[in-house]
C-alpha cells in the first residue's frame, strides 16, 4: 500500500464534462415546460381563502389578474380600511368612484389587446386574487364593474383546504 502511494503520482484523468451542459439543458427545458411566465408580482398582501371545491384554471394564456388586499411596501397607501387594488401590475384607487373608472379602463384595455391578438375578448378569465380579510364592499364594486363591461368569466382564487380534504 505504501509503495502504491509513493508511486501513485499519476494525475487523475480529467472527467469528461461535455454532457453536463446537456443535462442542464434538459433541466432548463423541463422548467420551461412546467412553469408559466409570471405576468405580475403581487404588491398587496394576499392570503387566499380556503376552499375544497376548487378547479384548476385551464387556459393560462388569457388571464387578467386582479389583486386585492393590504398594500405592501411600495404600494399606494389606501385611503380607508387599508385595502389596495392591483390590476395586473397597476394600482387602482379604492375610492368607489375612481375605482369604477380604473377597473373599467383596465377591462377595456385587456379586451382591446385580446382582440388585437385575434382572440375573442369574451374568453378572458379574470382571476380575482382577493385576500380573505377584504370586505365585500370592494368586491361588490369590482363585480358590478366587471358585469357592466361584459367581462363575465371570473375565478375566485382559493387555497387548498387541508383540514377538510377527503
Amino acid at each position, binding site marked *: 500500500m505504501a509503495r502504491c502511494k509513493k508511486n501513485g503520482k499519476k494525475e487523475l484523468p480529467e472527467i469528461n*464534462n*461535455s454532457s*453536463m*451542459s446537456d443535462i*442542464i*439543458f434538459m*433541466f*432548463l427545458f423541463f*422548467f*420551461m415546460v*412546467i*412553469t*408559466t*411566465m*409570471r405576468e405580475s408580482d403581487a404588491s398587496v398582501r394576499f392570503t*387566499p*381563502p*380556503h*376552499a*375544497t*371545491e*376548487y*378547479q*384548476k*384554471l385551464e387556459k*393560462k394564456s388569457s*388571464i387578467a389578474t386582479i389583486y*386585492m388586499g393590504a398594500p405592501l411596501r411600495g404600494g399606494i397607501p389606501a385611503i380607508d380600511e387599508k385595502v389596495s387594488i392591483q390590476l395586473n401590475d397597476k394600482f387602482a384607487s379604492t375610492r368607489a368612484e375612481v375605482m369604477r373608472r380604473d377597473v373599467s379602463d383596465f377591462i377595456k384595455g385587456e379586451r382591446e389587446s385580446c382582440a388585437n391578438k385575434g382572440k375573442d375578448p369574451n374568453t378572458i*378569465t379574470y*382571476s*380575482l386574487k*382577493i*385576500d*380573505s*380579510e*377584504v*370586505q*365585500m*364592499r370592494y*368586491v*361588490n364594486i369590482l*363585480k*358590478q364593474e*366587471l*358585469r*357592466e363591461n*361584459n*367581462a*363575465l*368569466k*371570473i*375565478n*375566485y*382564487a*382559493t387555497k*387548498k383546504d387541508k383540514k*377538510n380534504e377527503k
Partner: protein
Amino acid sequence: MPSLNTSSSADISFLLLTFFLLTSSITNEQGIPRLLPKISNQEKQQQEDIRERNILTILVNKNDDVLINKTQILKKEDIAVKLKDIAKEFLANPRNAENLPEKDVKQIDGLGTFAVSRGVISLTNDNSTTFATYILVQNELQKAVNELRDETALNYFGQKYEKLAPEEKKAIQEAIPINISEATSK
C-alpha cells in the same frame, strides 16, 4: 482538428436555468370559477317571476352569520357543517315537497328525460362581510352542486362527474345547473 472547449457551455446553460427559475412561476392557478350574469333590463321582471318556493335566499350579514330564507340563522362556525345539506336538499327536492322547488321534465341528450329543478339560490351579502365567508358560502354551494352531479353521474354513467367524457359532462351540467343569483348588496 482540435476539439472545441465546451467547459463553459455548462455555465451558460446554468445561467439560463437560473434566469427561468427566477422569472417563471409554478403557481397553479386554482379557484372557484363563476360566470357573472349579464346585465339586462328585464332583470327585475325575471326576479319577480320566480315563485317563492323556487328561491333559497341566503343572506350573509356583517358578522359573517348566514340567514336562510329569512328564518333560519347559521352561525359562522355552522356554515361549513349545515349549509351544504340545506342547499342540496333545496336543489334536489328528493321527496317533491310542496315548499321546495318545482321541476321541469326535460329531454336531455344522453340522459333521456330528467326532472330539472327550477331552484334558484339568491345570494346577498352585506358590505362588511369578509371575503373569506363569502367564499366559504360559495364553496358550500358548489359542493352541494358537485355532490348532486356526482350522484347523477354515478346513476347514469357509473362514474364520478370528474371522469366523464365532455359530452356526458355537458348533459349532467344541463340536468343540474348552478343557478346562483347575486343581488346587489344593501
